[in-house]
């Protein structure tokens, strides 16, 4: 029961990217709008300004202003010694960055997508992640590997994989998955300041989305804690966990479900490793039902881990089986109609929640 029911739906307009409804706690100050792209850019800028040891390395990060313009303006501001354009050799430059981190610098390595991180995965895992443990704490590796992760639009099988589950299984790494601009700013700053290797999984389709940000978020000292999930929407009837782009889908599903009298709690995981098991379990103990949502492949995915965690800690509180919604168990198709079917849609989440609430038939007859 992988939760991805393939049916043709007419509501394809739901797939268009819209600015997400902001579910932030409102601060008394007026909120501004900021795209995720600008959030990442400003976070990089501020951290490079605050600490001379921070530098950025990757393909097209300098003169091209960033493959997705995330590093726009940074070369002009910090110069070629701190913003380095690399050859297309991920193993080479990731290895060099890890070596620099051994020596005390704080590299931010950009992968054009995380699919290319597979070229460098030996360095991420064996050179970076394990070094602190293997050296009995004598070596720390304060490096950040960042870039777009998961499906984009029409980029095909080799450019669409989600690596959250792969990296999150490795002790020694921290794995973060921002959704909103607040997440992007706060988590990237936390990642750069962290003394351990961090895999920072962005999403290309979120870069252009705007979110409200408060003055607190815009402050240069703003930082989010690593390992804490955020409850984006409080609810009573069912818990939906999601990360990255799927948080937006979960929130839309919650709006639809509200009309059917189902009050969903949506948790934005923010951190896949360490996973905020206490927030997830506390929520499930309240709602008694759980749906996990992710874009990546279902087998050995993030949802599988969350399900195991809940079974281990909160089994007696479950009123329905945990259901995981994930991408289809196929390499990502290129054809647009097939691609849509291979990635979770809002309707999939709605249907799964109704199954969990034992309401798989719509309440057409209800008064």
């Amino acid at each position, binding site marked *: 029961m992988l939760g991805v029911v393939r049916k043709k739906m007419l509501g394809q307009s739901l797939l268009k990217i819209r600015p997400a409804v902001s579910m932030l706690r409102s601060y008394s100050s007026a909120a501004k709008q900021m795209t995720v792209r600008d959030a990442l850019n400003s976070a990089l800028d501020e951290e490079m300004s605050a600490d001379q040891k921070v530098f950025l390395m990757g393909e097209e990060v300098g003169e091209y202003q960033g493959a997705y313009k995330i590093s726009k303006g940074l070369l002009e501001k910090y110069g070629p010694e701190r913003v380095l354009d*690399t*050859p297309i050799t991920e*193993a*080479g430059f990731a*290895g060099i960055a890890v*070596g620099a981190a*051994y*020596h005390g610098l704080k590299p931010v390595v950009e992968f054009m997508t995380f699919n290319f991180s597979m070229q460098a995965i030996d360095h991420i895992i064996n050179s970076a992640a394990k070094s602190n443990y293997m050296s009995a704490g004598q070596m720390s590796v304060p490096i950040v590997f960042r870039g777009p992760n998961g499906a984009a639009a029409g980029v095909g099988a080799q450019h669409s994989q989600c690596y959250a589950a792969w990296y999150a299984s490795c002790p020694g790494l921290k794995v973060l998955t921002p959704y909103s601009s607040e997440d992007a700013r706060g988590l990237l700053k936390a990642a750069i300041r962290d003394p351990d290797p961090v895999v920072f999984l962005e999403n290309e389709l979120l870069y252009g989305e705007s979110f409200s940000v408060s003055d607190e978020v815009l402050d240069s000292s703003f930082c989010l804690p690593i390992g804490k999930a955020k409850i984006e929407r409080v609810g009573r009837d069912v818990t939906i966990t999601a990360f990255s782009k799927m948080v937006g889908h979960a929130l839309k599903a919650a709006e639809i479900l509200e009309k059917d009298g189902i009050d969903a709690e949506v948790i934005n995981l923010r951190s896949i490793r360490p996973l905020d098991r206490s927030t997830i379990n506390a929520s499930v103990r309240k709602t008694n039902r759980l749906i996990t949502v992710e874009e990546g492949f279902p087998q050995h995915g993030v949802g599988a881990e969350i399900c195991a965690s809940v079974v281990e800690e909160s089994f007696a509180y479950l009123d329905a089986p945990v259901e995981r919604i994930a991408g289809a168990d196929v390499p990502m198709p290129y054809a647009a109609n097939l691609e849509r079917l291979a990635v979770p849609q809002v309707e999939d989440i709605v249907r799964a929640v109704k199954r969990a609430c034992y309401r798989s038939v719509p309440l057409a007859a209800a008064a």
Partner: protein
Amino acid sequence: MALMRRMEIAADSLYKAKLIRGFCDLYDGQEAVAVGMEAVITKKDCIITAYRDHCTFIGRSGTLLEVFAELMGRQAGCSKGKGGCGLAFAQKYSKDETVTFALYGDGAANQGQLFEALNISALWDLPAILVCENNHHGMGTTEWRASKSPAYYKLGIMFLV
């Protein structure tokens, strides 16, 4: 060098007695490389090597006690020679005026990432000295069975402009 030789022979005996577990990669016969290198550098220069590193560690003022404690408790893992160019990057970034020796063996000399590290080091003019410790065997395979051209010292020629 004599101390290094005796240490490696002792380690071999311990390994055969199963007091050292896992793998035990010995450096006897290669001591001159580590000693020769140490003779011309300072302690501020960096060395990064792989798993055949007991003697290199001694050369850097490690003690026999540390080596044997490590081997008998937990096999030291491989640090990657490619990380050496990264140390050199950091030295240049911080304007240290030190260098890094990145050591690798003839077995690793066939790896693509070595070429990548060499390319970037030459391109960015990093203070890295890449040293191929050629003992003619990559694990168990002799070099002429592993490489079309075992003249590994020639690898750098294409980067001379």
